[in-house]
């Protein structure tokens, strides 16, 4: 089992490396978007970080529920891992977003619905990590409760910030660039897959760390028997 996942891990790591090396090539080759020029190309990393963050939030929420109601320790390890990934990819998204905004529109922050939602989720999962770090023993279950509430909150934050913005309209920071130009399709898919593979790699690495910690704890416990 361990040998198989070790091979899988190395394989995925290699794939991720290749994809990230290849990404700039594809991005450079992609056409420029009509209004924004070069800075728009940050979107090729910005949107996938988003998606990765949401995936992490979802995984954390679901595994937290499993841990709370079924008590499986592996679910708790997955939740802790996913929370860290959510914070990490969220940070990527929250850095690239304002960088884009400052160059494109001259302001760092525009209370865009999606960026604000990401910020709130980021805060929730930073709180998750703090709770596990500073809460003392038994805080894993409490963090699981927080993650569940955080995940349930996603639609509410989105709706409320969105409606709030329509009352105070400002320039749309993140226009929908789904199929703006045909030349953009492959780079975005490539980058999306690259981030997905990176997500998988980090997840595996972190889970392995947690599993090893659990093993060491179990050995400690067995030793003192």
């Amino acid at each position, binding site marked *: 089992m361990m040998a198989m996942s070790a091979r899988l891990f190395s394989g995925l790591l290699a794939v991720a490396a290749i994809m990230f090396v290849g990404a700039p090539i594809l991005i450079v080759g992609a056409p420029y978007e009509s209004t924004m020029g070069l800075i728009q190309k940050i979107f090729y990393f910005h949107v996938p970080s988003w998606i990765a963050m949401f995936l992490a939030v979802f995984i954390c929420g679901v595994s937290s529920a499993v841990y709370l109601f079924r*008590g499986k320790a592996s679910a708790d390890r997955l939740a802790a891992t996913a929370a860290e990934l959510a914070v990490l990819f969220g940070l990527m998204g929250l850095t690239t977003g304002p960088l884009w905004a400052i160059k494109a529109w001259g302001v760092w922050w525009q209370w865009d619905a999606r960026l604000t939602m990401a910020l709130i989720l980021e805060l929730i999962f930073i709180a998750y990590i703090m709770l596990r770090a500073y809460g003392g*023993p*038994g805080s894993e279950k409490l963090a699981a409760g927080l993650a569940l509430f955080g995940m349930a909150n996603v639609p509410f934050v989105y709706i409320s910030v969105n409606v709030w913005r329509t009352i105070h309209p400002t320039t749309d920071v993140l226009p929908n660039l789904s199929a703006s130009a045909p030349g953009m399709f492959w780079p975005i898919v490539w980058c999306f897959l690259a981030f997905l593979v990176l997500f998988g790699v980090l997840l595996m690495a972190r889970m392995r760390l947690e599993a090893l910690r659990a093993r*060491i*704890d179990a050995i*400690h*416990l067995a030793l*003192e*028997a």
Partner: protein
Amino acid sequence: MFDFERLTIDDVSRFYGRRRALSHVSLSLEQGELVGLLGPNGAGKSTLLGVLATLVSPSAGTVHYGDRTGVDGGLELRSQIGLLSHELQLYGELTARENLEFFAGLFDLSDPAARASEALERAGLTARGDDVVLGFSRGMRQRLALERALLHHPRLVLLDEPFTGLDEQSTQTLSDRLRALRDDRRIVLIATHDHDVVDGLVDRAVLIDNGRLLSLDGSDGTLRERYRSAVGSRR
């Protein structure tokens, strides 16, 4: 209504990371037994009581209350368990009677007012029934707290360090009350580090140290001596 005659702790362990709070604890308790759970601070006494009270779930092993387990016992199980914490679990701002009536209602007892009055009498606090608990001495609060825990006549009575801070008179009163419970066919488990006070009181004593259980039965020497030798030999 649900009831049980025997409490069986079957290879129960409880871990927190790499800290063993309880390790392979097995013990059987019958109706009409008064058992002492001795051990130094941090040994796992409170954790074991927590497990028996269904407030803490074991990492491994099962607790059997008659033919039901702790996991699927349901909330009916709690109607047969009485827990008295070290902190006594009373609301200082309320009067003795109000405390008892509140808990009687919580335990779904018919006519809470009457049950509260009975409990006050058993505690010998009828005269102070309408005084606020904040003004009570430790001994008085102890007596009240014990009756509070026994309001619903639970089969299993769990006491965590009940003798702390009591003077000799109060200790005697409490001991008598516990003996009466035992004679009433309850299962009484007292967790304490004070082996002197329970010597002669309990039918049986077990030692818990570093989460592990050890019987302290035997007729050679006082409980203190047996305890000392058991703890000493483990260092």
